Structures are given as structure tokens and as C-alpha cells.
């Protein structure tokens, strides 16, 4: 169910109406949101829902075992039943057959599904049996054991569903290069949407508890909603339990201020998705999919189009997610802060996919030592963090290259001692110097996007080799469409950057605000691509 589909709009309106009717009844609201979130996620593939419930149950148990050292009888049974019942419902029950009354076909004939269910039931049983002995472990040992279990199980899910084939293929290729022939073993698995987002989100919960920065929640319902909250489930922002879980457990107030900001974010998010991203995709796809036929300026324009496509797509999703959450009284973190206005790589990562970059900072870069162990180690930590950040995006070498490239430019800027801001946040450069720094960083970002968008090394070489300023008969059309669509976006963003306020349009006086909102809606009506296309970041 895509945000840019009528099915989602209908779904949200129904859920929102129910949500408003249940105001002042927090538990009922949370239950409604959990059911809605599972419905939303299960609409992709019901089997995916089992993964999310498995991740939820494991981290719920781990959180309590790290924090408190034991689970009450009710908590044990609730979490055990939760994972077994969702396994039953998502893996082995054939719902269409059940609803159609075909009793002979209501259970899956796939033995793998039964084995998964049996495995999960067995592990649950073992845990229930061992609970007392695990509770009796020395505190530090128990805390280490369960935080490791949480991290390993989440990374294990990612490893199996996202990275297994990539590493298996890469190993076979590597050994093949050394003269050793191996038969590749690959798994026939479908990548569950948003798996990287929710696994990172749940990991942050147990890691924070382990760091004693957060108390574990005793409510499975609240925790399950924190993991699966539908506005941000499949493409972020990757929320921290410290922020979102507190909002799940405490009564929420829907204020006019939040609704007003939320409506703007939804409107602006849809504009970025269906007007900017989807139209830029027409150029970027044409150029990158047929890169053998393009040269010079066309490739440059294709790369610029992709830069705006991915920005519009991802930041548009984030805006819609945050806007929807605001309508329900939730406050999700800002995920994009005008990244193409960045002056250096460090600045870029303070503005692009902030929820991921800050996650990597807090749970990877700083634990690795950050910048506290001398320049050499800092460079290594930066490179490693960016490499893994690249790999987070997908099981492909182009993402690794993209991460490595960003690691490299972060290191180079540090080596050059480039300082783009004073301590008070003012840029160190002004006028043309400032514009040149911004343009340089945008150029570097484009290089990164080419690595990100290409599907093979041969394509990377061909695209970089072909870049230039020679035009073709199609160049004028590409340039015209780029200018046409990007200009309104940039005009608003310049106003946002100058005012340092992302909600600058919401601050206009009523008349101009109505005009501006209407103009955005008219642009969406006329230029919005109607065929609901997937958001790029769903695949991550």
C-alpha cells in the first residue's frame, strides 16, 4: 500500500476517523494503530508480517531481560503466544481459502512454512523453560548475552533476507578469480520491504537499554506499535525508542499547531514525490537505463535528474510520514534539512537521511572510538561507518562504492581542514565563495549518486567516461524539464534556507499561504504522475 495510492488515502481516512473516535482511550488507540500498521505492512506480503513480529518479540524479551533480568509470567506467555500466533496466522494459514470456506486448503502445503513455525515454537518453549536460569545469570553477563542476542538476531534477519545472496555470489566470484570453482548457493528469498528500517529501529531500543539510557517497556502492545508504526515503518525516519516509545506510552494531544504543520508536510511531501521525483525519474531512468546511447551533457542531466528524483522521493516520503504522524499527535524526527545546500560532506550528512546518519554515529562511529583516538583512527572510523552506511542501502557493490566515496570525501575535507561554519552556525564563506562551496559539494554528491544509480562496474565506467558538455537533440528537452520541475522546488527551498525554517510557507500571511498551497495542489493535479510508483527507499 503506497502513500501515493487511493487505497492508502482511504485506509488512512478510516484509521484516522477511528483514532479520533477513540480519543482519551490510549490503549484502544494504540491497539487500533497496531492493527492498522500490521494491515498496512501485511498488504505487501503476509509472510513479512511474521518477520516483524519475530523481531518485535525478540527485542521485547531482550529489552526486559537486559533491564530487569526477568519477565513476569504474563509477559512470558504474551510474548510467546504473540510470536507463535502471528507465525500461525502469517505462515501457515491460507486466508483466502479460509475466508472462501475451502476447508481442505486452509493450511499451507509449503513444508518450509511449517518448519519455520515449528522452529519458532521450539525456541519459544526453550526460552520459557530456561527463563529462570537465564534470570539467575550475573547481571553483566545477562545484559551482554541479551544485547548480543538482540543484535545478532536483527543482523541475522538482515543477513538472511538481504545480504546472503550478495555475499555468497561475491565469495564464489572471488574464489573463482583465485582458480577455485564453487557452486553458488543462493536463497530464493524476497526482500521484505523496509527490513533495514525496522531492524535498526528495534536494535536502537535494546542498545539504549543496555547503555542504561532507557527503561524497557513492560507493554508488548506499546512496543509492537513502536516497531511497526505505519507512517514510518517502511522508509523511516528510523526512530529512536527514546523519542517514539515515550509518545506511544503517554497520552497524546492533537493540537491545531501540529495539524497545521502536518497538513503542510503532507502537501509538500506529495509534491516532492509525484511532481519532482516521478517526473525526474522519467529522465533519470531513460538516461541510466539506456546509458550506452547517451554521452556528454545528457549523462550530466541524467545524474542531476536522479539527484532530485531520489531527494524528492525519499524526503517526500519522510514529509508525508511526519505529517501523518503529526495529525495523530506524534512527533517524528526531521529526516532532511535541505541537503543540496550543504557546504561540505560533514554538513551533507547533517542534512541527508538524518535518522540513519545519526544512528550510525551513535551506534557505530562513536563506539568505534569516533574522533577520540587520533586522526588516523578517526579516518578509519569514518570510512568504516560510511562503508557500512552504503551497505545498509542494499546488497550490491555500487552501494559499497557509494559509501566508500562518501567516506573518502569526508576524510579528504578533514585532511584539508575545511571549516564551513563558525561556532555560532554562520557559514565561514559569503557570496560567490559560499555558492562555489555549495556547488562543489553538489558536484561531489552527483558523483556519489552516479555510483549509487549504476547497476554494474561497466556502467559506472561508461557513465563517468561519457560525462561532458556535448549535447544531443534530447539535451534541450531534458534541460527544459529539469528546469521546469526543479525551479519551484528550489524557490521554496531557498526561502527555507534563508529563513532557516522548513515550515516557512506555513508562516505566510493567510492570503499568500492560501495562494501558495493552492499553487502546490494545482501543480500536483497537473504534473503529478498518477500511476502510483514505489518509493525508492522501500527496497532498503
Amino acid at each position, binding site marked *: 500500500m503506497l502513500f501515493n495510492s487511493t487505497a492508502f488515502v482511504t485506509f488512512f481516512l478510516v484509521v484516522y476517523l477511528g483514532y479520533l473516535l477513540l480519543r482519551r482511550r490510549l490503549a484502544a488507540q494504540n491497539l487500533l494503530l497496531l492493527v492498522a500498521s500490521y494491515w498496512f505492512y501485511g498488504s505487501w506480503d503476509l509472510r513479512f508480517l511474521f518477520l516483524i513480529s519475530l523481531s518485535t518479540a525478540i527485542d521485547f524479551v531482550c529489552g526486559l531481560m537486559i533491564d530487569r533480568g526477568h519477565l513476569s509470567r504474563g509477559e512470558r506467555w504474551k510474548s510467546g503466544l504473540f510470536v507463535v500466533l502471528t507465525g500461525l496466522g502469517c505462515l501457515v494459514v491460507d486466508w483466502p481459502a479460509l475466508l472462501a470456506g475451502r476447508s481442505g486448503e486452509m493450511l499451507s502445503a509449503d513444508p518450509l512454512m511449517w518448519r519455520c513455525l515449528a522452529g519458532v515454537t521450539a525456541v519459544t518453549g526453550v526460552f520459557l523453560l530456561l527463563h529462570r536460569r537465564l534470570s539467575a545469570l550475573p547481571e553483566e553477563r545477562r545484559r551482554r548475552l541479551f544485547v548480543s542476542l538482540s543484535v545478532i538476531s536483527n543482523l541475522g534477519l538482515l543477513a538472511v533476507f538481504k545480504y546472503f545472496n550478495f555475499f555468497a555470489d561475491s565469495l564464489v566470484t572471488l574464489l573463482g578469480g583465485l582458480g577455485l570453482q564453487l557452486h553458488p548457493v543462493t536463497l530464493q528469498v524476497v526482500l521484505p520491504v523496509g527490513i533495514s528500517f525496522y531492524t535498526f529501529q528495534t536494535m536502537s531500543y535494546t542498545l539504549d537499554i543496555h547503555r542504561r539510557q532507557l527503561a524497557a517497556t513492560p507493554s508488548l502492545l506499546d512496543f509492537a506499535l513502536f516497531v511497526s508504526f505505519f507512517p514510518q515503518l517502511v522508509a523511516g525516519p528510523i526512530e529512536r525508542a527514546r523519542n517514539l516509545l515515550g509518545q506511544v506510552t503517554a497520552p497524546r494531544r492533537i493540537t491545531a499547531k501540529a495539524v497545521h504543520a502536518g497538513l503542510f508536510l503532507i502537501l509538500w511531501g506529495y509534491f516532492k514525490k509525484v511532481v519532482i521525483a516521478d517526473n525526474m525519474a522519467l529522465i533519470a531512468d531513460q538516461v541510466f537505463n539506456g546509458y550506452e546511447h547517451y554521452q556528454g551533457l545528457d549523462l550530466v542531466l541524467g545524474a542531476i535528474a536522479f539527484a532530485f528524483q531520489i531527494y524528492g522521493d525519499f524526503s517526500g516520503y519522510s514529509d508525508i510520514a511526519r505529517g501523518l504522524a503529526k495529525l495523530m499527535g506524534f512527533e517524528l524526527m526531521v529526516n532532511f534539512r535541505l541537503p543540496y545546500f550543504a557546504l561540505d560532506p560533514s554538513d551533507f550528512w547533517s542534512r541527508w537521511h538524518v535518522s540513519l546518519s545519526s544512528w550510525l554515529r551513535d551506534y557505530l562511529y562513536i563506539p568505534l572510538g569516533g574522533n577520540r583516538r587520533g586522526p588516523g583512527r578517526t579516518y578509519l572510523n569514518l570510512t568504516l561507518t560510511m562503508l557500512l552506511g552504503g551497505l545498509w542501502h542494499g546488497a550490491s557493490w555500487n552501494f559499497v562504492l557509494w559509501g566508500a566515496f562518501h567516506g573518502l570525501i569526508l576524510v579528504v575535507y578533514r585532511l584539508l581542514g575545511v571549516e564551513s561554519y563558525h561556532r555560532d552556525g554562520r557559514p565561514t564563506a559569503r557570496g560567490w565563495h559560499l555558492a562555489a562551496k555549495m556547488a562543489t559539494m553538489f558536484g561531489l554528491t552527483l558523483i556519489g549518486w552516479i555510483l549509487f544509480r549504476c547497476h554494474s562496474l561497466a556502467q559506472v565506467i561508461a557513465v563517468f567516461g561519457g560525462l561532458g558538455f556535448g549535447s544531443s537533440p534530447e539535451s534541450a528537452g531534458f534541460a527544459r524539464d529539469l528546469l521546469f520541475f526543479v525551479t519551484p522546488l528550489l524557490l521554496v527551498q531557498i526561502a527555507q534556507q534563508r529563513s532557516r525554517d*522548513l515550515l516557512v510557507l506555513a508562516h505566510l500571511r493567510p492570503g499568500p499561504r492560501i495562494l501558495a*498551497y*493552492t499553487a502546490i495542489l494545482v501543480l500536483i493535479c497537473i504534473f503529478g504522475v498518477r500511476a502510483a510508483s514505489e518509493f525508492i527507499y522501500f527496497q532498503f
Partner: protein
Amino acid sequence: MGEEARSGRLPGGLPHETPREVTPGEILRLVLGVLVLLLVVDLLLVALDARLPINRTGHLLRAKWTLLETAAPERRVDWLVLGDSSGNQGVDPTRIRELTGLESLNLCTVGACLAVDDAWMLERWLDTRPAPDKVILIHVYDVWRRAEMGNSCLVNLPLDREQIEAARPAIELSSGKRRKILTFRWLPLLMQHESLSVMLRDPARFAANRSHLDELGFDHQDRADPERVRRNMAEHLAENRVTPPELSALNRAALTRIAELCAAREIELVIAFAPILDEMAELPEFRDYLARVAAPLETFAAEHPKVRLVFREPMRFSATELETVDHVVGAAARRYTDELVRQIGD
């Protein structure tokens, strides 16, 4: 990784969100204000559409019906040319006059109207004006198999619901189709977005893509598009593989109605195949398909004494003379007209 971000402090250089204090009333006024303004924009587009139809199909349909309705009551033509857009830009009445001295009028519209619109136009003409000697019906081979009038025709026809429902052959207007007609006419912002998009993004292309009709209804197009022609050929072949070649019930009813009208006034009815891309016409799979489309038309012609089929072998053109596989441009229209005159003369 940003230093400031690492230290957890949001630097002053980064933009942030500052929600403003508002009242529920202010939000309501904002929403209502936007809705009213959207309605105003939409109504302006309705007015614009009435003066300058936003899309090419609308422009063509209205222009041809206007040509029909505004022709002087005593105006007599020798040949009345009906059909789809291939005839619209393929048959030049001025050239017919040069070759034969005969008067003709080109009332061809679009394929989405099937032969139904032809029957309606002919009836309207015969109700108010002298009968022509010949009615020439030009259609692309794939129009004959279409079972329903396309939405692009229905929504752009300058006829109201009563007129459509009273016309023969009668067509059934489902509630869905009626809703579509209403929304298309009254919500251009939502329904005519593709045409509006081209109009605003690329006015030159929009202007070039419009019909350039002369006073006799011939649409002068002179921009060949070989790339589009080849894409269009692939689309045709793909569609032919999944759609059986037949004469649809609605087209048969329309054809029967046209034949009745012609027979009642001693008019000769000439059915002609549209021009076609040479590369496609040479393909055995296409030739086979075309033969199966032509068969029921030949039978129909054989059953009606004053009906005949010309261009049994469609006239072929190269991609550089076409806009799509069946739309000729420039001098190719003249050649097609010449051949049409020759075949009718034969």
C-alpha cells in the same frame, strides 16, 4: 558525520521546523480558502476549454461538428468523407477538387468514436442538407474490432446526454461513463492533466500537436516522427497478438445504419482502409491479421448493393512520411488522396 551533529547540538546553520500557533478556525479557513481557489482555477480551465480545447481530440471533435453544424443548409457536397483521424489528415478535399472538380468535405474525427460517430454525423447532415453522391468511410484496420466508444471520444463529443442517447445506433451510457463525461467536462484540472501538462511545459509542442484544419476539414500535419512510428508499430503488433480481428457488434450496427441512410437516398458508400506503414504491411503476421479484418467488411459490402470496399491492399508509406503507423503527413496526404480518387474512379 557532522561535528555538530556528533555533539548532539543542532548548529545554527541548519534549517529547523518552527510550527506556528494557529487556531482550529484558521485551519478551517485555510482549507476552505484552498478549496475555493481550486474551484476557481478549475472553472477558469472549463472556460478556457470552451474557447480553446485543451486536448487534441477535443479540438478535432468540436471543430468537425462545428463544421457540420455551420455548413449552409443549401450546401451540397459530392463526396462526404467520414472516419477517423487517419482520414482527417489523409484526405484533402482541395486535392479532390483539383483532380475531379468535385466538392467534398472531410468530417473525419477520431478512432475512439468508432463508426458510430460517422453514422450520427451522416444522419445529421442528411437531416438538414442535400445528400451527397458518395460517402467515403476511412478507418484504420484496428478501429473495426473495437467494441465500445472510447472515453476520449465520449467526453469530448459536443453533444449532450439526451442527444447521445437519442442517436442511432444507440449506445448505452453506463453510470460510470456518465460520471466520466461529467468529471472530464467539469474537472479539467483533474481529468485533462496530461494535455494541460504539455500545454504548460512545452507550449511549442502543444501548438504543433493541435489540428490545423482548413475550411474543408483537412488537417494539415507536416511533422513526420519515424521514432514514434516504430514505437507505434510495436504497440500495434503487440495488441494484434492478443485481440482477435473481428467486426465488433457496435461497428456492425453503425455500418448497417450508415448503409441504410445511404440506401434511402441512393448514395454510394465507399469503405476504405487507412494508409499504413510499409514495414508493418510487409509482415506476414500483419497481412494475415488484416485479411481477417477485411473479410467481414467484404461480406458486408457484398450484401449491400451500393457499398464497396477500396484499398483492400492498404496504401503503404515509409516512416519518414508518417506521424504514427497510419497518419500521413505532408506530401504523403496528397498521394493518398490521389490514390483514393483513382480507386473510387475505378
